[in-house]
């Protein structure tokens, strides 16, 4: 039975989540690179959005959400053939066309998140080929395991809006790609600083607002669950922002805009898996922990391990997502203001299930991404030449300049 209110909210939420990638994430990342690479980042995000859309219709949606397999779905909804126009998506009150679109926007932003790891040095063909293979071999199976009725769903993993499906898959794959691709020329101290922090802030704001669609839309209805998901999302984002501002103010004496907006994204990623299960008090704690842990991980990845995950995809998204998945087990507890765990399950028991989910998704993402990267390297090569990297990708790869002044 299709409900008008639920449908209206999900159509709105779908638009909000697409807006997160186009142009939110594109601008967020675009401001962080040097001016000669701005267009390449925008182009990569735009291209991924379009390519994933086509693949989603051709087979990816069906493989994720059709069928009852433990590991992967089936092909019975390829091209949405056989899906009646007025059919509600399974267990929802919204049309399947809207569910298809809503889930598609998640499939778009996830590979687009990985862009942050390889900016300023990856070949365009390699970006496209990697994203296509990664969608089918990493995103689709993991989304099926957790949201499509697969084996992790059977075990009762809590991942409301994609801590595992979106942020952990993208984060660990991004780190691996950054390692295998190698650092940018001059990393760590001789790469150029962000060319437009204001642009990064504008993109982050679009992400923040869009995240209301991401998390509150994941309720798949327009009721109390959506309302609380939106509330906790906002609280976590704001809290993690304050954490980054305080850390930078104490550590450097200069609280930066880039730091503050990065904190917001960390808070948003961390609350994501828990957003449908927890209360506003828990959101404060989740924002606090997410902000602090993600800040530490930026230091660890970039400064300790010297890995050029250029825009900190693992530290902000991967770690934030994983921390949120664990905290969901704690704060879903009714005694802590959550909606309550499944009858008869303890917090420790749920935490173990969450940990199983993290480890499974981590291993799958790393192993499969490794194979994909090796394949792409063999087929088209990963990196642009040093000469092109020095001159910038915009003019060499795309034939345009970001700024004609």
């Amino acid at each position, binding site marked *: 039975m299709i409900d008008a209110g639920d449908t209206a909210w999900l159509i709105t939420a779908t638009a909000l989540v697409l807006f997160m990638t186009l142009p939110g994430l594109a601008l967020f990342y675009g401001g962080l690179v040097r001016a000669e690479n701005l267009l390449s980042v925008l182009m990569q995000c735009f291209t991924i959005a379009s390519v994933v859309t086509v693949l989603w219709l051709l087979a990816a949606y069906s493989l994720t959400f059709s069928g009852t397999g433990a590991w992967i779905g089936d092909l019975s909804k390829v091209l949405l053939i056989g899906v009646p126009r007025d059919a509600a998506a399974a267990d929802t009150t919204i049309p399947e066309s809207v569910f298809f679109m809503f889930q598609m926007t998640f499939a778009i932003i996830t590979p687009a998140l990985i862009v942050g790891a390889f900016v300023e040095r990856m070949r365009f063909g390699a970006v496209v080929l990697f994203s296509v293979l990664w969608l089918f071999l990493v995103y689709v199976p993991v989304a099926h395991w957790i949201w499509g009725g697969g084996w992790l769903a059977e075990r009762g993993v809590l991942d409301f809006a994609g801590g595992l499906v979106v942020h952990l898959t993208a984060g660990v794959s991004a780190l691996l790609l950054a390692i295998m691709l190698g650092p940018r020329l001059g990393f760590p101290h*001789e790469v150029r*600083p962000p060319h437009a922090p204001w642009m990064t802030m504008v993109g982050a704001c679009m992400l923040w607002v869009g995240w209301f669609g991401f998390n509150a839309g994941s309720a798949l209805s327009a009721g109390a669950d959506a309302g609380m998901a939106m509330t906790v999302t906002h609280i976590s984002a704001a809290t993690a922002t304050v954490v980054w501002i305080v850390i930078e103010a104490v550590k450097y004496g200069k609280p930066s805009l*880039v730091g503050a907006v990065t904190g917001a994204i960390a808070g948003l990623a961390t609350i994501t898996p828990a957003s449908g299960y927890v209360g506003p008090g828990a959101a404060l704690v989740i924002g606090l922990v997410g902000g602090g842990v993600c800040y530490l991980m930026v230091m660890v990845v970039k400064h300790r391990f010297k890995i050029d995950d250029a825009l900190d995809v693992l530290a902000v998204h991967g770690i934030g997502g994983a921390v949120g998945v664990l905290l969901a087990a704690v704060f879903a507890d009714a005694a802590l203001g959550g909606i309550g765990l499944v009858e008869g399950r303890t917090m420790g028991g749920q935490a173990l299930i969450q940990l199983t989910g993290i480890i499974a998704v981590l291993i799958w993402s790393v192993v499969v991404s490794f194979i994909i990267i090796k394949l792409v390297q063999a087929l088209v090569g990963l990196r642009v030449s040093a000469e092109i990297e020095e001159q910038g990708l915009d003019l060499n790869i795309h034939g345009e300049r970001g700024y004609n002044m």
Partner: protein
Amino acid sequence: MKYIIAIIQPHRLDAVREALAAKGVQGLTVSEVRGFGRQKGQTEIYRGAEYNIHYVPKVKIEIAVDAGMADAVVEAIGEAARTGRIGDGKVFVLPLEGAMRVRTGEMGADAL
């Protein structure tokens, strides 16, 4: 005639312009430039990562004056541009062999 080139902190430009106007300087040329001195640039921090900035933004002022005015002009620039901190810049004085006012064709000191 002397040709004076001053490299100063961008935020001191207005103070320098006012000081020069008070000395009777009739015109000058300004450009935004980048460079480094003995400090070899500076560092900036984004998300905790240090970036070496080799070329620091500066303003270059170029002025052509009568030889008799040169010392007073250099002194005025120095006073107006000085903050006492690293990166205040430098002033160079060069001999100037000729000049022409394009509109009238006047040559030499008359052209200044």
